[in-house]
């Protein structure tokens, strides 16, 4: 079958999709977006977390056909998504999500850098690097998408709020302490307008 949907603000068309394929498989193997990760492919680890019409989901549990006509944001589009949100007044109130209309108005910029140097990052991405929250990095994309979504809803989370929001994302390397630091850091920078 053919699936048409929007990924990181760009219309995408995937052909010859077998009906059993997941959104994760289509992103990784058909659209060249392997940022969303395949750690368990059974909805337990959160490494494949993407936003589907703004809602964080495990893309391994979404059948590709279910995304027909819908909006997907992956880690590859997170920086531009966050930038767009900031330019549109962000979510300082803590009350909003991202409206579908807003989501449709932006497009991720391409990244060609081999080293990643000079890449513009979202606050949560920068905070993960600065706080030492990345080791092997396999959990990182899913955690970033989940943490970014939480900070959109709740810009001043307590530690218990952070733990609750990220409890669907497994990490095996860090013991989560540096991830906590990263989210606190992103929240602090966000509230300071840094």
């Amino acid at each position, binding site marked *: 079958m053919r699936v048409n949907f929007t990924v990181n603000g760009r219309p995408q068309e995937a052909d010859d999709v*077998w009906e*059993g*394929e997941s959104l994760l498989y289509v992103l*990784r*193997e058909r659209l*060249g977006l*392997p*940022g*969303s*990760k*395949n*750690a*368990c*492919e*059974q909805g*337990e*680890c959160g*490494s494949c977390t993407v936003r589907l019409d703004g809602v964080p989901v495990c893309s391994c549990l979404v059948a590709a056909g279910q995304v027909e006509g819908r909006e997907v944001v*992956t*880690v*590859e589009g997170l*920086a531009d998504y966050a930038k767009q949100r900031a330019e549109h007044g962000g979510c300082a109130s803590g009350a909003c999500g991202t409206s579908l209309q807003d989501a449709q108005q932006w497009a991720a910029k391409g*990244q060609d*850098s081999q*080293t*990643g*140097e000079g*890449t513009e*990052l979202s606050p949560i*991405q*920068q905070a*993960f*690097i*600065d706080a*030492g929250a*990345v*080791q*092997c*990095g*396999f959990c*990182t*994309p899913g955690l*970033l998408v989940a943490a970014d979504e939480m900070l959109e809803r709740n810009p001043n989370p307590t530690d218990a709020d*952070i*733990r*609750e929001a*990220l*409890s*669907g*994302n*497994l*990490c*095996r*390397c*860090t*013991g*989560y*302490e*540096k*991830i906590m630091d990263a989210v606190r850091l992103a929240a602090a920078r966000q509230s300071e307008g840094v």
Partner: protein
Amino acid sequence: MPANGAPTKITQGSKTKGGIGESTLRPDGTLKVTGEFAYSSDMWHEDMLWGQILRSTVAHAEIVSIDTSEALAMPGVYAVMTYDDLPTDVKNYGLEIQDTPVLAHGKVRHHGEPVAIVAADHPETARRAAAKIKVEYRELPVITDEASALAPDAILIHENRDDHHIGHVPHPNIVHRQPIIRGNADEAAKKADVVVKGEYTFGMQDQAFLGPESGLAVPDEDGGVHLYIATQWLHSDLRQIAPVLGLPESKVRMTLSGVGGAFGGREDLSMQIHACLLALRTGKPVKIVYNRFESFFGHVHRHPAKLFYEHGATKDGKLTHVKCRIVLDGGAYASASPAVVGNASSLSIGPYVVDDVDIEAIALYTNNPPCGAMRGFGAVQACFAYEAQMDKVARQLGMDPVRFRQLNAMEQGTIMPTGQPVDSPAPVAELLRRVKAMPMPPERQWESSEGADVRQLPGGLSNTTHGEGVVRGVGYAVGIKNVGFSEGFDDYSTAKVRMEVINGEPVATVHTAMAEVGQGGVTVHAQIARTELGVAQVTIHPADTQVGSAGSTSASRQTYVTGGAVKNSCELVREKVLEIGRRKFGSYHPAWATAELLLEGGKVVTDGGEVLADLVDVLDGESVEVEAEWRHRPTEAFDLRTGQGNGHVQYSFAAHRAVVEVDTELGLVKVIELACAQDVGKALNPLSVIGQIQGGTTQGLGVAVMEEIVVDPKTAKVKNPSFTDYLIPTILDTPTIPVDVLELADDHAPYGLRGIGEAPTLSSTPAVLAAIRNATGLELNRTPVRPEHLTGTA
């Protein structure tokens, strides 16, 4: 130049920004947070096929027949291979003993053993084709423990063993046995006022790295193959892969892909040979990616163990003797079992002074899943048992458990049970003091102005208690881990370092085969190069087999050994750069001949700080390159009868204090805090050091309260191969982990550093167990502890 193994001091100033001791950030950080970092499962190639492995559905059976015809006939299937299709006489592989079949031949020895492989144009087609392969098994009785392995009529798991351990093991179903006898334990026992015996069980833990086993094999035009792979040791893989393919090692090119964690689980081969075989058979690139279910069958686990201990002590609190027997279940294939036995035995009494010991460790061959390397490697199981014993002895003596440990703590100069003197700092008592001195988390920490926050309580959002029945407990533990490969292994590493001017700036390039698995070796290599060569710009070349071996990313050894190799090669490059400088500019300034010269801030300077030349002018179009091997001090094998020998390179110590709260009615445990104190020698990158300690601590927490691969003792089949049923700690299960880092230099090691990755995994588990015992008063002689063990319903 320092000789191999000689102490290598800091020979350069540390004035160059981004050098050792700073918390520089990961060079791969940006790629990892943008999703651009290419892990082994992200590889893609035009026209590539997908490989799939068919695995045995039973644990022990003769293979009567394999019929691949239906699978081969499926549209989209390019190849189906079984044992009969292997191209050479080399059909087995293995880290030390080549006992593992590439594909099963006549017999399967554990649940999930590879039987056949398929290549197809879609992963689902490959899966369906594999399912159409008909394998007829004739089942055999399963061997699952010591009793069944050594029974008079026991089937031999491996007949006709010819490995170098068969001569000294008491039974062919024992992989390796290491006794250690020192002093006279029976005689010393007579001096004991208190004798405590205990029997302990350690469950089978999985590394549960998040990046599944995966890789891409691309056939080369010269008949060779290029493998992009996630592994812990490229050259060890290469040595095992090439003979099976019938290719010289020069025709098997290996490049490290992004590695999604390892923790020991990538020391053995998984899909490497299978992908290469299918690629060479079909002439097309072949990608294999395990799913999580398959991953549980695709790598070795931590050895489950039975441990029998006897400790004696005088009433003033001095240990008189220790006897112990450690039985490790190695499963169907040897993997790293012999080395795990060496560690378990030599570290079996912990970081304590005991002159009279009688120790035995063995690893069994059984039909359980193969076990091998996992973070802590034999020392973890022992630490769980000896620390439980230390608490029991202290209780019998009426002594504070920390005080009792400190009274018996080893220090620099202590002689190990192996007769090896501990010849660098061993601050065991001090680590215990520090961890005990840390502030305690407040009582009833779940209370907030709006009542109980259930997220802070056992049971969490299940809302099972608001504090009723909740009891706090505190427990302590300390452990000892060896660093580096032991027992006489030639544990070297290689580094190629080049220095040249690029765009008007001096740049160093560091090329090693070190597997970066997340630990931050790439960060540290760049820091070492900056410190040693005084340049700001360092390029880390991708790891591959175009440079000599770096050894394994395991045994807490890479910062020590490959870090040491990078340091050594940088020093050699520096000497050459200075030679060029002397040749070109020596006549202009006498200091070139007389002063101690350093490279700092892109310049050649005297140790007095006088600038002699810019590196840009010294190099001026020339490049300097050195590839050199580096070795730490040699070690010796342990004597096979007495266990005596200077077997270890270095020791690493960590202590933990666990604070838990237990809902005693439901048997639910919440770990509130896991404080750690560790001596790291020298923190080359403090941020990464803390990250390693916290990560290792959390894996120890996991096996204390939740992680266990459950194997059915009747069938030897794995019952919980998924993240639904094999639980690892989430962010809700993991407490705050305050870390106190001590830096006492080891004069034998580069920069005085100490390998740090594993020690925190040792003491974390027994500290949590001690805290749960403290809260509940229960004996708890097994780990992990589950609710039924706390409620008497087990």
